[in-house]
């Protein structure tokens, strides 16, 4: 409680007067003879209790009367906020946090919720008094304070609020509320308050109140909730869009999975359409149960190689921004894989060590409609091969390689090619270490140095098994599911002991701990070393069912490793990628609204270009173009977070410490008045005067109650 004229409170000393009168003041009694006190005593007993009560009541009434007089003169203000408990002369320090997350984009009674919120923020700022300081912040993911320090400049604050756009990002309460609290914490001489203007979606508030104990917020800081948007509208949203093929080849039908969420208490139907590069391809009717999620699978065929824009849409509703979702996919020509097998010895039958790899990559030996187009060449024939036309090259049990081929392999690998090296009885460790590692300097080919052979493939006395499979690597992740097979059941009878390079990944070990399969990122490409043979001479893995998926997954992972992690980018998140250095000086980013911006790039010594951009506020399909904008180097899609589509409101009672400031248009006090009341409290002097008047009447009536009639 605060007082406009606190010096009047000294009048409370006047309370002593009725207390003195009650306790000490007695009229000097008159002595009077009376025939007998018999009846008087009986009457006194009856009257005394009533009189005592009456006197106490009268004293209480008079004390309250004095208090009310003093209160009325002191002009008291009361309020539930901490601000209202301060003196009315104390300046205020306030932080106005405006929720501009995607969920604010829906409409309530035909009015944009976000515009309503912006209006509330402006009204709150309007209540700034001379000497008050404030800042404004945004609640999205990641949220921030627009002005890191408090300012007196009300106009600038209001202008910044007016210019705030609706974000397509999610909501992170902590990222703006916590900096706000930190900013206000030292300003103890101010009346401090944080106003949070939000639609109060449960999906954004629940994690916040679960993680942070708001009850521990300094009591001197008011947390004021300004809810907007009314109750949650029914909403249907596309919350997922992905292709279910590990690699997409032109002309091949692949399933596109669309996840549709129905955030409403009734069954809803909608027409789902899928477009590829802006061209509507497929439509399907879908029905989703109340408050549930359903997946729809639509088969799609891609005709264009390179980056493709896939979008899915449902019919628009109260929240239009989540009714469409985008996906950037790279479509490949069937991947050409070059197998380089040992030359056949004169007079000997043709070397067939490539057989298991070739059949694994193309089991039906089809020339079309296969993911991999496999070509096999001998070491001599490989000299003339145009390596850049191949997605991957497999070296199988090579003794020596021509220096020219080694150089071209090195360039191929560093430029983005992929190399798989199988060991075998022809491999000479010293030659491999010297020519494929040491002589190449930083452009070496192998991920590990090779030492001696372990085991005996002739006697097959000991069969080693692979353990410690890296289930996080795409090559083995497929086997993590139950029933998907276990490469560890294959037996390896002989292999090379190797020592992986410091930056190499160990994908599998042998059962006694030595490395089995090693992979290393080399430039833009990848190099994998398999320490045993590609045929059944040293291992029975090629005849086991896990061989084929291992090879497929390994090659797809290597080929697609440089692609952006599509489908995981949220609005406002930074995007980093490394691409080929052909047009390395400057790149362009084409945004969903067709505007283009420059992307800063960094070129490494190996000629790799690292790009980094934060221009991802819009949702949709982004293309990374060459400097002239002629060629698409890569693309990615930005989609709103799925949880923003859940518009259910959290009950305000579940949020501790927050004082609600609700307002319904056209009813009750305005937002400005309510802000003023929260800040200064209610002026209760009028009420005190009214109570005083009432009490005076009661006191007068009570004091003159006809407990006895005066003598006429």
């Amino acid at each position: 409680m605060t007082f406009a004229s606190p010096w009047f409170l000294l009048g409370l000393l006047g309370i002593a007067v009725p207390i003195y009168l009650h306790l000490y003041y007695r009229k000097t009694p008159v002595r009077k003879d009376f025939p007998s006190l018999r009846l008087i005593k009986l009457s006194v007993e009856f009257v005394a209790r009533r009189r005592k009560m009456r006197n106490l009541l009268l004293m209480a009434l008079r004390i309250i009367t004095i208090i009310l007089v003093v209160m009325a003169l002191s002009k008291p203000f009361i309020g539930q906020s901490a601000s209202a408990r301060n003196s009315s002369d104390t300046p205020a320090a306030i932080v106005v946090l405006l929720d501009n997350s995607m969920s604010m984009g829906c409409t309530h009674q035909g009015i944009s919720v976000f515009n309503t919120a912006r209006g509330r923020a402006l009204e709150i700022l309007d209540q700034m008094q001379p000497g008050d300081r404030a800042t404004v912040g945004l609640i999205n993911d990641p949220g921030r304070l627009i002005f890191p320090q408090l300012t007196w400049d009300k106009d600038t604050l209001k202008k910044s609020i007016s210019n705030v756009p609706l974000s397509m990002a999610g909501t992170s309460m902590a990222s703006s509320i916590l900096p706000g609290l930190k900013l206000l914490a030292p300003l103890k001489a101010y009346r401090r308050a944080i106003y949070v203007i939000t639609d109060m979606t449960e999906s954004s508030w629940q994690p916040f109140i679960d993680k942070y104990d708001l009850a521990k917020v300094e009591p001197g800081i008011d947390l004021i909730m300004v809810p907007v948007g009314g109750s949650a509208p029914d909403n249907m949203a596309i919350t997922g869009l992905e292709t279910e093929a590990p690699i997409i080849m032109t002309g091949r039908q692949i399933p596109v999975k669309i996840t549709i969420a129905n955030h409403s208490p009734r069954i809803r139907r909608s027409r789902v359409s899928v477009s590829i590069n802006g061209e509507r391809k497929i439509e399907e009717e879908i029905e989703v149960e109340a408050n549930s999620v359903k997946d729809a699978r639509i088969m799609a065929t891609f005709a264009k190689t390179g980056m493709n824009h896939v979008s899915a849409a449902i019919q628009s509703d109260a929240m239009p921004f989540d009714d469409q979702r985008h996906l950037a996919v790279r479509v490949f020509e069937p991947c050409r894989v070059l197998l380089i097998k040992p030359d056949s010895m004169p007079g000997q039958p043709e070397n067939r060590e490539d057989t298991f790899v070739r059949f694994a990559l193309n089991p039906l030996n089809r020339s079309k409609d296969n993911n991999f187009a496999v070509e096999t060449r001998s070491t001599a024939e490989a000299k003339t091969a145009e390596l850049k036309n191949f997605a991957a090259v497999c070296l199988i049990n090579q003794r020596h390689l021509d220096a020219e081929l080694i150089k071209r392999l090195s360039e191929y690998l560093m430029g983005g090619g992929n190399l798989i090296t199988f060991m075998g009885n022809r491999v000479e460790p010293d030659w491999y270490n010297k020519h494929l590692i040491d002589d190449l300097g930083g452009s070496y080919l192998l991920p590990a140095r090779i030492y001696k052979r372990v085991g005996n493939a002739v006697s097959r006395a000991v069969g080693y098994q692979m353990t410690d499979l890296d289930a996080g690597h795409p090559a083995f992740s497929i086997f993590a599911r139950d029933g998907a097979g276990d490469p560890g059941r294959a037996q390896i009878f002989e292999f090379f002991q190797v020592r992986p390079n410091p930056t190499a990944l160990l994908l599998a070990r042998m059962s006694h701990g030595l490395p089995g399969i090693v992979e290393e990122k080399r430039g833009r490409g990848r190099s994998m070393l398999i320490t045993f043979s590609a045929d059944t001479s040293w291992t029975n893995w090629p005849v086991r069912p896990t061989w084929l998926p291992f090879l497929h997954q390994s090659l797809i992972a290597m080929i697609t490793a440089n692609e952006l992690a599509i489908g995981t980018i949220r609005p406002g998140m930074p995007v980093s990628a490394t691409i080929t250095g052909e047009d390395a000086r400057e790149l362009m980013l084409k945004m969903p609204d067709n505007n283009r911006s420059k992307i800063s790039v960094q070129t490494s010594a190996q000629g790799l270009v690292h790009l980094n951009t934060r221009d991802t506020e819009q949702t949709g399909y982004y293309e990374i173009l060459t400097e002239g904008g002629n060629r698409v180097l890569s693309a990615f899609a930005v989609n709103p977070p799925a949880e923003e589509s859940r518009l259910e409101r959290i009950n305000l009672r579940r949020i501790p410490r927050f004082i609600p400031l609700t307002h319904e248009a056209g009813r009750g006090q305005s937002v400005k008045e309510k802000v003023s009341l929260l800040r200064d409290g209610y002026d209760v002097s009028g009420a005190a005067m009214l109570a005083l008047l009432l009490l005076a009447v009661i006191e007068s009536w009570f004091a003159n109650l006809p407990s006895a009639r005066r003598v006429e």
Partner: protein
Amino acid sequence: MEKTRRLSRFLDPKLLAALSSMEIRARTVVEGMVEGLHKSPFKGFNVEFSEYRQYVPGDPLKDIDWKVYARTDKFYIKEHEEETNLSGYLVMDTSGSMSYKGQGSMSKIDYASTLAASLAYLMLKQQDSVGLVTFANGLRKMIRPRTGMAHLKAVCNELEATAASETTNIGASLDLVGQSMKKRGIFILFSDLMDNAEVIIQKLRQLRTRRHEIVLFHVLDRDEISFPFDDTTIFHDLEDESEIVTDAFQLRSEYLQRVRQLMNTFKSALRKSGIDYLIADTSMPLEANLRSFFSRRQAVSAR
């Protein structure tokens, strides 16, 4: 008249002159020695048997008919009719409370004494016998009934000599008076009745059961009836000297209610028992009180 005035300060010649035409008339049948004036079949011993009545405490044991007791195991008194003139007993409360004098000219005891002296004069004048009993906490003085105007002096002297003091014990005093009265007659009791009302009513009823005619003058000062006090007051009890401090203004309503209740209690209870109950307000002229007494007696006598 002058002779009478000299006789006592309680005999007001004007008052007596106004009352000279009045007579003491018993309500129904009253004993009296002057024949024709009081036709009353008195139940005594030396004349014809009249009736049996049940023994009540206070009756002399010698009057009990032991033969009847032997037959019925109950005490009965055998009564006989007897011709007698009126014996009047003036019973005067002389407790401390009677000394109260409010804003009127007389204290309660003076007022009651004047009433008593006046009635004694009238009764003696018509050849009836008059006795006087004064009591407070117990009997203080008893003058047996006698006839003749010479007896008036003795009554008046005693009235003048008696000062109001002590507390009141009406019940015990009435018991003693009842036992000492040999002849039935008319009891005229002057008291402010500052004692337990139930006991007083019970004792008066007992007297009435023994065929005494009873008239009760409830002597009250105007202050006791209207309680005209407003201030915080120390009330001093004239009987037991106790004191009480109270806000008279707040007390007034409750007090007046109790006084009214007390008077109504006496009025209803005594009249049911055939006892005349008269309020003697000391602020009222004595003549008015006596006139109301006589008019009442005459009305009853005419029945």
